[in-house]
């Protein structure tokens, strides 16, 4: 025992260390029959995975619901930096640019045949995942068309129309939306919408033809009149007293939703799921009207394959099957995510789809219409950070008594601090 024990110990320690070395851990074997898939939680990805398994019973999929879209992007970054990567990962549109900036971390999907399917997708959505030398890093799984969800019972009580066409006619513009809010507040004394930052500014700023970057990818957030106009709308809504000052997705926001505190909430297509799950008791009391301004997109995600993936081919087979126009249409009928493939927009399976939770509103029709005539804009690596600071500046006015007159300059200063230019 005398000499052997330290050697044994040293060997054990060594074994332990090598086991912990990042980057070498194995997923499934590279057999093309199994792959690991990271997705967000609470978007029912399981259903789609099961549908694929039904079609391809020989394939094994290990689905991990990492967390929110942001948490998934953070985990992916950590994994890419030196850990075990999945074979397939879902990336939310807002997080995509930071990865597109570093294309060396992902499989260029053109090598697997992305060019053949390119024509199936909305061109401006596809282009967001194309890196500087033309590498295609992701396939769009859905888009986030825009609309407004409103409570028919609360609208009726306030003497407002409840029919979705009549309600849409109430607000051709955001100014008219704010005016409607004031009317509602006058009759009921209650807040009209949840907040100004997300429900007004973040919607309006996604309806522009040029956002924080110009088409040639230069920062123009401080000089672009469209951004300023959207910001001013946000401030106007914040100071009009029509919001209940609850930041979207906070716990008190969910509580307010369940208690029927908001008569109208801006609802990108994925928000419907969130309303359904936070306020299940309000079923049938909602309906869906057009977004002020008529069109817009917020959100949508992409499927990408990290470079170090063990089974890129199996992952690509999944993308090809499930993200085809037909696959996305089925996905829409399963969970309500809006397809990024325009060829199915006229399909009766989409146009006839009605949502009983929202008074049988034809969600497919309403949301795809909001995507027509949409003007694509470039989303850059700092877009998310810039958007966050604008949101913060409006929230500050709305909830913490910030000065509306200096809010714009405050926001610009905060952005400068955040992105360093």
């Amino acid at each position, binding site marked *: 025992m*005398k*000499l052997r*024990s*330290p050697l044994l*110990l*040293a060997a054990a*320690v060594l074994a*332990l*260390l090598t086991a*912990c070395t990042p980057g070498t851990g194995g997923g499934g074997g590279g057999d093309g029959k199994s792959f690991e898939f990271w997705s967000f939680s609470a978007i029912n990805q399981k259903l789609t995975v099961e549908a694929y398994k039904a079609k391809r019973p020989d394939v094994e999929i290990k689905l991990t619901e990492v967390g929110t879209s942001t948490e998934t992007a*953070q985990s992916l*970054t*950590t994994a*890419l*930096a*030196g850990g075990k990567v999945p074979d397939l990962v879902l990336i939310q549109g807002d997080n995509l640019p*930071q*990865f597109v*900036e*570093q294309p060396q*971390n992902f499989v260029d999907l053109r090598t697997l045949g992305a060019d053949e399917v390119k024509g199936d997708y909305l061109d401006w959505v596809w282009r967001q995942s194309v890196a500087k030398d033309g590498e295609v890093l992701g396939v769009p799984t859905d888009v986030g068309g825009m609309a407004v969800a409103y409570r028919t019972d609360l609208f009726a009580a306030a003497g407002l129309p409840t029919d979705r066409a009549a309600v849409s006619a109430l607000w051709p513009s955001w100014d008219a939306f704010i005016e409607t809010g004031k009317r509602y507040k006058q009759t009921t004394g209650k807040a009209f919408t949840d907040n100004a*930052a997300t429900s007004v500014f973040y919607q309006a700023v996604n309806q522009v033809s040029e956002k924080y970057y110009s088409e040639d990818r230069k920062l123009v957030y401080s000089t672009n009149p469209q951004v300023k106009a959207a910001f001013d709308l946000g401030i106007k809504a914040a100071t009009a007293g029509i919001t209940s*000052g609850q*930041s*979207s*997705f*906070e*716990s*008190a*926001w969910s*509580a*307010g939703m369940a208690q029927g505190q908001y008569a109208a909430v801006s609802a990108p297509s994925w928000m419907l799921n969130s309303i359904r799950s936070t306020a299940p008791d309000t079923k049938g009391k909602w309906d869906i009207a057009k977004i002020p301004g008529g069109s817009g997109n917020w959100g949508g995600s992409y499927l990408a394959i990290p470079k170090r993936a063990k089974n890129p081919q199996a992952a690509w087979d999944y993308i090809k099957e499930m993200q085809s126009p037909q696959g996305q249409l089925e996905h829409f009928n399963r969970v309500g995510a809006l397809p990024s493939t325009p060829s199915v927009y006229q399909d009766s399976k989409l146009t006839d789809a009605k949502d009983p939770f929202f008074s049988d509103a034809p969600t497919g029709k309403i949301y795809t219409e909001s995507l027509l005539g949409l003007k694509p804009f470039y989303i850059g690596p700092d877009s998310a*950070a810039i958007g*966050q600071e604008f*949101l*913060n*500046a409006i*929230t*500050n006015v709305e*909830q*913490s*008594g*910030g000065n509306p007159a200096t809010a714009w300059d405050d926001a610009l*200063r905060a952005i400068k*601090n*955040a992105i*360093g230019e």
Partner: protein
Amino acid sequence: MTATLSRASRAAPPQPGARKIKGVGERLSAYAYIAPFFVVFGVFGLFPFAFTFYVALFDWNPIGDQVFIGFDNFTRMFGDPRFWNAAGNTVSIWALSTVPQLLLALVLAHVLNHARLRFALFFRMSVLVPYVTSVAATAIVFVQLFDRDYGLLNWLLGLVGVEPVDFVQSTWGSHLLIATMVTWRWFGYTTLLYLASLQSLPRSVFEAAAIDGAGPWQRFRHISVPSLRPVIIFTVVTSTIGGLQIFTEPLLIATGAPLTCGAVRQCQTLTLFLYEQGFGQFEFGYGSAVGVALFVMVVAIAALNYLLSTRIKAD
């Protein structure tokens, strides 16, 4: 401390020359036995610590390029109002939590040390309950108590005609909320430290003082407090170091913007700022620079502690 040391040395008296160490193997085996700790410490403690200083000199994108930029991260930090805001918040939350916490603990320890206290053990143990409750659970409960629309506290304030206060969204409110959580969590621990120190005092001193006509306040002021001086300094220093590292509470209270603790960073502490830069924005270099700054502050406070405690011993 000295008591523990002398007891330990009595239990295992040194036996020089009792047995000769044979061979290189046995000599080395001792190192192998202590290796697990030092290997783990090296991998998860020492290496990341040293590596932080290295990374702080880079513009370090974890999935992209790593560019050496010298001290630019530090220059940026000193000119960054977000850094100073976080530093200010940290100091404010630390002051709001440490001062009441230590005063409360001092008074409680004095009371719990009272000779005629019934169920003393029960009370002494009860003060530790907040300490063993998970921070996340504490945060969830306190955020609900302090909620603007549905909170118990605002309901009580409403009874006396005060408008609801939005604690999380306001600077002072959020600091107060975090400080309350920190105080709640740590006062029991500090109380027990004081109590242990008080109990090492001979009871006869208190009795003699009582016979000489000293009231409870005078006994507290002239016996308890002076005899607790070393342990008070110890707790001030540990709670200051802990205060510099307040992280979980601010992360959990503003659920809409957790990494900045609210829309205008009203309660973002230094560690949260570090985390936001490092793991929210993935600016590893800049985040590391903030980490280095935090390290320097903690060392400075520890040095101050050393100076103060040696001064006290010299007294």
